[in-house]
């Protein structure tokens, strides 16, 4: 009943799609972590001029659909910025995807960082400061290492959500896994084989990701026992 031959006809799209989805996720995770850390610290800084922009950023990117963000960034924000302001060529769809996914992930990760840092008892900071550490040192050497352990499970969730949400870039004709499945299904009228193939590819990636996060959780929790 399922005609698998269509997959071999379109296998190049699936191979490219697998690589593209992987690339999108890795870049968005890394850039999103940096954005998230900065925003998270801004929100905890206690200074209004730092807290407010961070708050607005998180509200904006968490409060609007990612699909809309992708379309707006690809067709409006980046073309205006690059062509009208900088006088350059409008960047490719892949670049738009990196930007949209990273900015979006940054908002979610900022909240994870904020909650993680806030969950560490106040006494830790006070103790570190009373030992003569600066705020920065205390944050870097005492608070963040402890907070990171608590952030891992929600971060793992976010990475998996991000990997799956990256499928939305199909609308701007980026050849990810979903694009391969859609193109194959639309051209051949065969639905089962392309959708199942795409599902398996996503599962492979999400399973790898969740195993990596689980491994890190276990590695880091051993330091708890020693202490």
């Amino acid at each position, binding site marked *: 009943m399922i005609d698998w031959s269509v997959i071999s006809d379109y296998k*190049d799209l699936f191979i*490219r799609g697998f690589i593209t989805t992987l690339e999108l996720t890795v870049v968005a995770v890394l850039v999103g972590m940096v954005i998230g850390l900065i925003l998270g610290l801004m929100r905890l800084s206690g200074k209004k001029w730092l807290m407010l922009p961070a708050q607005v950023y998180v509200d904006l990117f968490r409060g609007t659909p990612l699909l809309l963000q992708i379309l707006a960034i690809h067709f409006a924000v980046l073309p205006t910025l690059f062509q009208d302001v900088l006088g350059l060529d409008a960047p490719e769809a892949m670049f738009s995807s990196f930007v949209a996914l990273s900015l979006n992930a940054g908002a979610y990760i900022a909240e994870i960082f904020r909650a993680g840092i806030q969950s560490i008892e106040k006494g830790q900071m006070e103790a570190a400061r009373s030992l003569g550490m600066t705020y920065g040192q205390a944050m870097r050497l005492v608070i963040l290492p402890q907070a990171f352990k608590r952030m891992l499970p929600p971060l793992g969730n976010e990475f998996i959500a991000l990997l799956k949400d990256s499928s939305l870039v199909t609308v701007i*004709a980026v050849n990810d896994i979903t694009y391969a499945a859609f193109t194959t299904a639309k051209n051949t009228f065969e639905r089962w084989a392309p959708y199942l193939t795409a599902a398996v590819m996503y599962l492979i990636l999400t399973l790898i990701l969740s195993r990596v996060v689980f491994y890190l959780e276990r590695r880091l929790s051993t330091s708890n026992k020693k202490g």
Partner: protein
Amino acid sequence: MKKWTGMLFALCAIISLILSGCASKQAGTGDALKVGTDAQFPPFEKQEGDGRITGFDADLLQAIAKAGGFKADLQHTGWDPMFEGIDRGKLDAGIGGITITEERKKKYDFTEPYFEATQVILVPNSSSVKTLKELNGKKIGVQSATTGEKVVQDAFGKTYAGLKGYDDLPSAVEDLKLGRLDAVVADNAVVMEYVKKLGNSQFKIVEDPSIPKEQYGLIVKKGNKKVLDQLNAGLKKIREDGTYDKIYEKYFGKK
């Protein structure tokens, strides 16, 4: 107690909503034909601000229905769900610049052709491209699963890396305008509409005679002879009594 009745009421409301959703999925039970389209294909079909679908195909369908003495309810489903809706019996027919191809004929029955179209290449004015072949290695935008995509696939391979399939043609034209694509391949009437709208200075249309001409038809589920005959009879009648020519002239000028 009060809390329970409230919850029960809410549950009933939800269940009835779900059931009403199921009921409306069955096609062919009412008297109006359910016809799907992808209303992002001007001048053949587009959706107006108030939700109405207008365009050559919309007018043609209503004329066919009137001539045939039946009602037709045209709804925007999107391109891919239109085919799927017909497969599943949710729709009786589909209209929307659907080119009659051998591949589609395997799964659907087509009415008599009602429009002759050809694929043309839309390029920026500065481009020197004269034929499809010259686009090899370049980025070409199409609407996925249209004959525009097929023409490019036939020329450069099914999985040609420069082929960018968009869900809708306006997005592809937008990326051409922004310089992200080198060309867009699509149906002539649709491309002309864009050039008209965007002004002549930006784009030009390249016609490559090596691209075969094609015909549009309405589709029904394979074997749905009842609806097919209804549509064909109506189409024949409006061709004979001049209604077809009137609609044609309204959108494309004199033949």
